[in-house]
């Protein structure tokens, strides 16, 4: 039998549709399986803004009869107990059997569980199943305490082989009537499983998202296809028809970033490019209609866009009356976060952080003093023209665009507007570019700031946000991350590695353990998802001390290279063995050095000598890869040691000395990576 369920609702937010369908598809599939209505049900889901649809085929008419063995009292039980059990099963005592349940002889009864019609099962289960659809924000509409859904449910189609599955949600009874496009279709019309899509089409509803997508793509104008916008428009329309409009080319002297943002984010239009890659004075809007023969819709959209562009021009012009450099003090009136103060305070912290980063770069590996910072401040406050000077200047101005009309109107252009204004107001190009880029990267896919100045500024901004938020306890949990701290942390990792910046990131976290763990999580994510390193390789490296992410990267590369060589994995297995031995012996190292005299001649001494040689070779080695090769080459000596030498020697002195040898070796080579973290076959 075929199942059709359509939940008709008022307009569902476009971005919630995919999640709802995913849930409904699997929930219906599970229901059919659990009730043995279908073995491997083929469930299809579809949606438009006003309907969520689930269809399935090959459903049994009934849940089959089954038998269930019920166990009663022991064979030795008094007759009254046996009679009681029989009565409970609704049979005479002589209809019971005595069987062994695996432990004892007991009275038992093979109860027949009659099957149920699929319609009955579905009618019972569907209301709860539907209401459990997870939406990010639900509402009630029938009154306090009423059911919750994303928007009011206005009709329900529920058919099993075209018989109505009867149930009710929020006063709406299921039936066989669907509803068409709000203006072009009929309000109610009957459907069957077979005619469903066709009837919808007759009423100006295209059920298939793919088909709606194709209709949107099929427009003569070559527009820049933004996939996220396309998805939004597919889920905002039941009968999408794209139209092309144009605007006065005189607006093209506004920055194209502003024009594109107005079109894409505010008006949900696609922008259009000329063949040579410039912005064309045109747009593509997607209507929820069957056409615009009189050009009324095009005309309306053109006027709205013109007003929007005029607004933007008005804001641009009035913003120029006050330079960015004159707006710094105004930042005292813009809140960054209640507990973390204003953007002026944030700017001051960022200024210091930019200097800190500069000094760390100038004096790698050195601890930083107040004096260093003061000196750097004096050195770079007024020039000379250098990346350092530009970065400091950019930091000072970076947040001032938050006080401009244009950013108040188009918040997503923060940074970009600052960069454009800085350029228009004669700031050095390097400063303009740094401000323009400093919110980057906004996603894993986004690129990092183009210049070193931009990278330093972006790091300072993100570090300040993270340090501040963690300090006042605003730590992301689960899906809650209102300050986008995960993105900030991911951005730091990406900038440090892809910008090839050698900076002590743990030191920069000021020893905040929670923050360092949070960053480590993003580091793992980056190396795994973007760079394809194995879990255990990353675990091994991060289990060793780390601070500079480029060094982490080099160690990972070294492991990746040495891993396929025959010595590596067996050696890793040996390290694991060493770790276990040390752990079992609760051995944490000796205060005194190793006593060479206690070493047994043969394998033990050989291992010790090999270790000393390797230690020296590692220190002299030019890179991690060579080090890793040296370490891997220890394998035969380690194997031989474990083959021939008993660590748990009867003499406690010897035993302690042996443990000490293993401990020193482990400690020496675990500074690159903790090899015992490597997952091995053996």
């Amino acid at each position, binding site marked *: 039998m075929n199942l059709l369920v359509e939940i008709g609702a008022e307009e569902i937010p476009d971005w919630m549709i995919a999640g709802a369908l995913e849930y409904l598809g699997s929930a219906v599939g599970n229901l059919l399986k659990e009730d043995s209505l279908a073995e491997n049900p083929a469930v299809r889901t579809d949606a438009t*803004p006003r309907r969520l649809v689930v269809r399935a085929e090959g459903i049994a008419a009934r849940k089959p009869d089954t038998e269930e063995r019920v166990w009663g009292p022991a064979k030795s039980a008094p007759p009254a107990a046996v009679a009681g059990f029989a009565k409970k099963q609704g049979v005479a005592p002589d209809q019971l059997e005595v069987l062994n349940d695996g432990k004892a002889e007991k009275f038992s009864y093979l109860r027949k569980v009659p099957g149920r019609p699929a319609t009955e099962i579905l009618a019972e289960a569907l209301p709860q199943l539907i209401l459990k659809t997870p939406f990010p924000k639900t509402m009630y509409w029938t009154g306090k305490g009423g059911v919750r859904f994303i928007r009011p449910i206005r009709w329900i189609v529920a058919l099993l082989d075209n018989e109505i599955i009867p149930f009710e949600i929020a006063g709406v009874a299921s039936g066989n009537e669907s509803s068409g496009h709000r203006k072009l279709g009929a309000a109610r019309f009957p459907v069957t499983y077979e005619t469903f899509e066709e009837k919808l089409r007759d009423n100006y509803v295209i059920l298939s998202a793919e088909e709606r997508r194709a209709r949107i793509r099929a427009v003569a104008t070559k527009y820049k296809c933004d996939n996220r916008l396309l998805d939004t428009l597919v889920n*905002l329309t039941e009968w999408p028809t794209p139209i092309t409009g144009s605007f006065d080319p005189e607006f093209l002297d506004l920055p194209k970033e502003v024009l594109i943002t107005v079109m894409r984010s505010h008006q949900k239009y696609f922008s259009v490019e000329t063949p040579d890659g410039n912005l064309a004075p045109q747009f593509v809007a997607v209507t*929820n*209609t069957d056409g615009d023969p009189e050009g009324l819709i095009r005309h309306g959209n053109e006027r709205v866009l013109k007003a929007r562009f005029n607004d933007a021009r008005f804001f641009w012009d009035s913003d120029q009356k006050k330079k960015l450099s004159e707006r710094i003090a105004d930042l*005292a*009136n813009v*809140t960054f976060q209640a507990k973390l103060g204003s953007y002026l305070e944030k700017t001051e912290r960022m200024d210091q952080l930019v200097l800190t980063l500069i000094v760390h770069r100038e004096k790698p590996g050195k601890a930083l003093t107040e004096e260093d910072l003061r000196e750097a401040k004096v050195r770079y406050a007024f020039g000379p023209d250098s990346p350092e000077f530009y970065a400091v200047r950019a930091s000072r101005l970076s947040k001032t665009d938050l006080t401009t009309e244009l950013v108040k109107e188009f918040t997503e252009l923060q940074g970009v507007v600052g960069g454009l204004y800085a350029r228009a107001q004669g700031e050095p190009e390097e400063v303009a570019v740094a401000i323009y880029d400093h919110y980057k990267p906004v996603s894993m896919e986004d690129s990092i700031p183009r210049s070193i100045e931009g990278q330093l500024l972006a790091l300072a901004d993100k570090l300040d946000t993270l340090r501040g938020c963690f300090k006042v306890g605003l730590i992301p949990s689960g899906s809650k991350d209102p300050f986008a701290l995960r993105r900030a942390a991911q951005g730091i990792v990406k900038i440090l590695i892809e910008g090839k910046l050698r900076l002590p990131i743990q030191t920069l976290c000021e020893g905040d353990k929670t923050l360092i763990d949070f960053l480590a999580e993003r580091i793992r994510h980056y190396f795994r998802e973007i760079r394809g390193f194995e879990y255990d390789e990353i675990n091994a490296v991060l289990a060793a001390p780390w601070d500079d992410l480029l060094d982490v990267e080099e160690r990972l590369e070294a492991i990746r290279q040495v891993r396929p060589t025959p010595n590596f994995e067996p050696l890793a297995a040996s390290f694991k063995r060493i770790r276990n031995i040390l752990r079992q012996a609760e051995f944490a190292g000796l205060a005194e050095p190793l006593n060479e005299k206690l070493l047994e001649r043969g394998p033990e001494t050989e291992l010790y000598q090999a270790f000393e040689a390797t230690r020296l070779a590692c220190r002299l080695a030019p890179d991690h890869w060579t080090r890793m090769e040296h370490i891997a080459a220890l394998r035969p000596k380690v194997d031989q040691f474990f083959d021939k030498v008993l660590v748990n020697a009867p003499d406690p002195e010897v035993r302690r000395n042996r443990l000490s040898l293993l401990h020193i070796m482990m400690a020496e080579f675990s500074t690159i990576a903790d090899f015992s973290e490597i997952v091995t076959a053996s």
Partner: protein
Amino acid sequence: MPPATSVPSFQEIVLRLKQYWGDRGCIIQEPFDVEVGAGTMCPETFLRVLGPKPYRTAYVQPSRRPADGRYGDNPNRLYKHMQLQVILKPTPVDVIEQYMGSLEAIGIDLRKHDLKLEEDNWESPTLGAWGVGWQVMLDGLEITQFTYFQQCGGIDLELVPAEITYGLERLTAFLQGVDSVYDIEWTPGVKYRDVRYADELQYSVYNFEMADVPTLWKLFEIHEGEAKRLLELFAASKEKARFPLLAAYDHVLKCSNLFNTLDARGAISVTERVGVIARVRKQAVGAAEAWLLQQQGEVAA
């Protein structure tokens, strides 16, 4: 472009919408006489949505947003704009169809235009109120805010009302095909500019340049004090049914408008801001709770 003959004037649009909603059981109210930032803040909405009594009303509300003033220079932005506010409590099941009917009543043939309902939820921290809904887009222009109220004054609503708020200037500019609100024909021979330009200019000058900050603070405190005093008296009062809660609420609204003016004047620092919002909210929530209590008494009696 719609044919010129059928284009209604500003006042004609207002009249037709009032007629339309009046025909559908709404009490046609006149604008509330204390300055507000939105029609939602009027007692006809803020207080009436509370409690179990069904209610339907529609009214035009001039809405003041001091920070939005542009000295009459900006063609699309106003210090004081006009909203047509409709409250349907509880929401009828065909509410969207009724709303679409209202657009046709003012001459929009929806078969020839593109109407979309795009998610837009509403929240007012000062009023302790929120709801979910849409912005209604007509040919790319936001013409209406549609909200299913869920909470008001921090209280879960017993009956869920639909709030339909039309931006009258935008809607009219769209219908009349003019690019500036000041070119709207208010009634034949009279432009919006003729009626409203002085308001825009003078209030911008006042709000941005001349409003005396210490005086505004003093006024804020006076109104806050009066609201607080009344709400405390209500709590102790034995004659709750005749208690002037509506007067107390007027003072809350005064506070809200003064806060907005101080904010536009740049007189509220970051650290103060959150605190001042909380002060207004406290009185607004207090008024809502007291009102509900008063209503319950009435229902019981």
